[in-house]
């Protein structure tokens, strides 16, 4: 039985609780960027009303470093209180605290908010983190094991398989099924989990070819720069930013363009350094060529200084954060928004409530702090470079993993409904889409593992015949259940193990047949007849004048009163009484036939 709690039909705050085989695992611990109050953190009171988190949770798994997946981690571990293990990949462990600190600075230092976690809390929280490698099977405890798979979405993004006994869940986090300029495609083996919990951000979109989108992007940037406009690209410091930098860098080189490209905040260089050190997490091409040329050493892209904002002439600026909700990107946006020569390109998803969300939805007059309104004249472009799987990709992943159930999260209800139908149609598996705070219970019916004795397994039901691997065989045995162990052995062995003595039940009867020949001849005749009829049984002619068919004994003697009547003394055990019946029928029938 699996229970899935929390998370839901909304992009912005991932936190899922899975109960599997008696273990409770929290998948991601994200924060909602669209809220500024308590609603931005997941509601842990659901769990804590019955005790501390540490007692309840067996482990916490974080799929990647985006704040909507890890933003509430220090809040949970340090403010609510959790001391158990937290798992994430090495790059996530490296980058996550930087983004958390960055976000904390914007929220607390700039906005002056209280009731937020401190720098020290981030550090303490990260001490509880255990880094995992791809495909490494981590034994959380004796029963619970987890395994990470490459997810492609951002540097270090991973999907996780959670396994308890024969039951398993795969949580995808955010993933991307098509390789891009710096990351590879997500991959999972055919692990046949009970459930796949998949994100569904782009549940209905089947995105056009990546190349087209790139060309489109370059064309727009180029045109704007040519006519002397400024291009603002709000990004998060790590992830999409690096891909777009590689894209622009190569374009600038090829076209020999001179307009400056800047990257805001001091994080950039550091961020690129992470990419250099974690080059094994990038795509094949970059990994292969990194010794000759490291793709993350940019020639055309220079660090940005705030004073450049008012410089005349064209420029391209990457600025953080990506949803225009605070920080430098918002400041630059405010300065440039009034000029229709300029352009803002939003390369990622924007959460409801952010400036990015508003302008993307056509709002051109924005209310700012105080009573000011800001008129947006600059061109607003949305380009989905977000490395999420589209509907095709989600289907592809389901095909790869072959789950028995699918559960969609991290998407919008309407789109999910469409995808749900498609999945149920194509794979004929159950598909669920729980709302926030809703619990989904999925009953699994796992096979029961049993130890079978090798001699029984190798024993062939038909003696002499070669076992045909394609043909199912019939197997008979005894299952011994003792101290939680299940063992399947042959009945004989079971008797022996239980210390029981076999009770032999034997029957004997005499059959009279008419046969004038000698005893020896009669026996021979029966022998050769049985040989032709009962091909699969072992028939032996013993030296003492007895026939043995499996364990049936046949003896021939002549009746004292009539030499032409022969008496067959037949003796058999209870186990072969059916064979005995067939055998006698054969003998008698053949004799009748001969006589008539």
């Amino acid at each position, binding site marked *: 039985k699996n229970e899935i709690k929390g998370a839901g039909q909304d992009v912005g705050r991932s936190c899922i609780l899975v109960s599997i085989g008696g273990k409770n695992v929290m998948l991601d611990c994200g924060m909602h960027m669209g809220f500024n109050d308590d609603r931005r953190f997941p509601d842990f009171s659901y769990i804590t009303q019955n005790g501390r988190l540490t007692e309840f949770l067996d482990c916490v798994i974080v799929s990647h470093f985006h704040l909507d997946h890890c933003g509430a981690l220090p809040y949970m571990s340090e403010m609510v209180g959790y001391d158990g293990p937290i798992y994430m990949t090495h790059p996530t462990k490296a980058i996550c605290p930087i983004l958390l600190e960055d976000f904390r600075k914007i929220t607390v230092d700039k906005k002056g908010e209280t009731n937020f976690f401190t720098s020290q809390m981030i550090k303490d929280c990260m001490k509880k983190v255990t880094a995992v490698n791809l*495909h490494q099977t981590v034994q959380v405890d004796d029963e619970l094991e987890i395994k990470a798979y490459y997810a492609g979405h951002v540097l270090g993004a991973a999907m996780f398989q959670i396994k308890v006994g024969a039951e398993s869940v795969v949580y995808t986090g955010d993933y991307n099924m098509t390789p891009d300029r710096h990351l590879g495609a997500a991959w999972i083996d055919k692990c046949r989990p009970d459930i796949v919990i998949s994100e569904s951000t782009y549940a209905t979109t089947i995105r056009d070819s990546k190349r087209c989108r790139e060309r489109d992007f370059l064309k727009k940037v180029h045109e704007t720069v040519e006519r002397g406009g400024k291009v603002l690209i709000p990004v998060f410091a790590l992830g999409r930013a690096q891909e777009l930098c590689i894209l622009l860098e190569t374009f600038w080189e090829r076209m020999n363009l001179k307009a400056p490209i800047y990257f805001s905040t001091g994080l950039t260089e550091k961020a690129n350094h992470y990419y250099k*050190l974690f080059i094994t997490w990038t795509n094949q091409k970059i990994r292969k060529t990194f010794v000759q040329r490291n793709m993350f050493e940019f020639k055309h892209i220079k660090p940005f200084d705030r004073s450049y904002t008012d410089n005349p002439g064209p420029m391209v600026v990457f600025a953080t954060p990506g949803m225009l909700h605070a920080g430098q990107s918002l400041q630059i946006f405010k300065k440039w928004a009034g000029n229709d020569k300029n352009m803002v390109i939003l390369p990622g998803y924007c959460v409801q409530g952010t400036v990015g969300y508003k302008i993307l939805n056509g709002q051109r007059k924005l209310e700012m702090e105080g009573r000011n309104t800001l008129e947006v004249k600059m061109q607003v472009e949305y380009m989905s470079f977000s490395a999420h799987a589209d509907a095709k990709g989600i289907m592809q992943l389901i095909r790869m993993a072959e789950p028995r159930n699918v559960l969609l999260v991290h998407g919008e209800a309407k789109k999910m409904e469409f995808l749900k139908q498609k999945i149920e149609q194509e794979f004929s598996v159950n598909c669920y889409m729980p709302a926030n705070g809703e619990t989904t219970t999925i009953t699994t019916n796992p096979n029961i593992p049993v130890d*079978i004795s090798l001699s029984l397994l190798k024993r062939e039901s038909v003696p002499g015949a070669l076992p045909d691997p394609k043909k199912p065989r019939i197997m008979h045995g005894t*299952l011994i*259940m003792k101290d939680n162990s299940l063992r399947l052995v042959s009945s004989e062995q079971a008797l022996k193990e239980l210390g029981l003595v076999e009770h*032999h039940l034997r029957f004997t*009867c005499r059959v009279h047949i008419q046969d004038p020949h000698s005893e020896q001849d009669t026996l021979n005749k029966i022998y050769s007849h049985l040989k032709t009829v009962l091909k699969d049984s072992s028939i032996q002619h013993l030296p003492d004048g007895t026939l043995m068919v499996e364990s049936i004994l046949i003896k021939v003697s002549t009746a004292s009163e009539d030499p032409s009547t022969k008496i067959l003394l037949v003796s058999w055990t209870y186990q072969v009484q059916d064979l005995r019946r067939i055998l006698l029928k054969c003998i008698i029938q053949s004799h009748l036939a001969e006589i008539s």
Partner: protein
Amino acid sequence: MKLYCLSGHPTLPCNVLKFKSTTIMLDCGLDMTSVLNFIPLPLVHSSRLSTLPSWIMKDGNTILEKGFKDCAGRVFIDSLPEFCLPEKELLDLSTVDVILISNYHCMMALPYITEHTGFTGTVYTTEPTLQIARLLMEELVHFIERVPKDQSAVYWKSKEMWRLLPSSLKDAVDVTTWKPCYNIQDVNAALSKVQLVGYSQKIELFGAVQITPLSSGYSLGSCNWIIQSHYEKVSCVSGSSLLTTHPQPMEQSSLKNSDVLILTGLTQIPTANPDGMLGEFCSNLAMTIRSGGNVLVPCYPSGVVYDLLECLYQFIDSASLNSTPFYFISPVANSSLEFSQIFAEWLCQSKQSKVYLPEPPFPHAELIQTNKLKHYSSVYGDFSNDFKQPCVVFTGHPSLRFGDVVHFMELWGKSSLNTIIFTEPDFSYVDALAPFQPLAMKCVYCPIDTRLNFIQVNKLLKELQPLHLVCPEQYTQPPPSQVHRSDLMLDVQMPLMAYKRCSVLTLPFRRSFERIEILPQLADSLMPIEMKPGVSVATISATLHSKDNKHVLQPPLKTMVPPLSKKRKRVIEESTELKAPKPLLSGTIPVELFLATLHKNGITEVKMEDTSEGHILHLQEEDTLIQLEDDSTHIICDNNESLRSTLRDLVLRFLQKL
């Protein structure tokens, strides 16, 4: 279960394990000590080497004159060097399903095994092992191919020559199996068969066995392998280290409870302490530089060289070597230095945490940045412009038979100011130096071998407690040079099987159980009977489905009544196959109760007779005898089928059925 031992070299093993229908090769080490019998390959023409006198055989035979050179009383083959391969005739290599590699040194024979042998399997190893092995192989191929050799000895391997060969070759392992180096195509083809794995990853092989690599602490990405089924476990400990150097520490606990532990790759220098050697290395280096000499360090392009550079990084300031140039010369020097920085996941904790800052894990990045360490692909080109003396040069190959090191031997060998410091433990330094004698340069031997020593391994085995131990025969006796040192051998309690080249061991295994799965529907239909408190049994009749070595029991198919066929034989066949056999019986029949039951069923006239073993009941009316004994019942009854079944059912009431 059998183990085929294809290599006799204890640190470069090549064993093949046959286990549960799989054939698994464990490592494929290439014994390169054979190259010590060859004349060095100089980069530039060396008049000294080319004018060495030919070796004259005792019987004055001249056929071989061209093929052999004599240098200071030792004989060298004047030909491209050849390597001693793992035994290829002991079993058909095309039947090997998988090859498990423990570290990059134990992978060097891979192209010989996977190419031109019909091998179609998969090679498993970690990413650092693959990348560094590629560098080592590329370097080796490059070293040998860039020096064309016009004359080469050909006849020395023929049978007639064998008795004439110098003793060093006579004693060597079967020289006829020696082979020249592979080429780059073979390297690429061999490495394309590698599948990458991570530490503690569980990999299923054909559904029959599970293999898991565990960190072994010896080198970047090095691992020990566990091969197990549900009931058997074989651990392969090959080249492990308990010292804290750059790789991730050795994972020990998972090696416990093994049925068999195959132990290879212990330290080759059991008497030297690596830390002490590192200190000696630094002090000798500093001393030579101070007196104006050059230091030559023959090394592999990866491995201990990282530790040497790190040690020097800390040492440079205190020894005021700030202005001394350090050169690292290898065709793969740059790649090796770059690769070392990107394998954070495979490094020890302290190096890992540096990456989180983010800083390069190895300090040689800083040495390069500050221009203290420079790397070149060879002595040609840029190096000759930048070259300043006195300096320290790290370069290969440690055998001193090929690579740029040969050039420096010729260059610096005549001056007693210079020093050569041996750190790699794979070759005897005396043999390595032999073709350069007479030599004026100082020679320091500080072998650094971080692999387990005997004290460590004896303690480790005491903790791991494998039921059986398999190891090369060399570990069961003190080294031949120190026969009195009984501490330099294995000292263990468990039964030990020693192997040598071409041994075939039968491993002591008795498999008696296998894992099978029962469908829940079938499980629901079972009716368990409690036989004893806590012990229940249930009889199962089910169909067995076997696929990919996995077995599943499913509820038996509904028995179809076989259609009345004219062929009786066919009916018989099907009916015997589909019907469950009668259960085995157990128990004792209580006579009094049985009699009472007979009465109830209308059989009243029973005469009972006691025998030594039990009773005989005579059913007089029916003319039937029943012999009752403690563990048998015999019903003798003619031609009365219905009575017989009645009696049978009555008897069965008192017995347990299995």
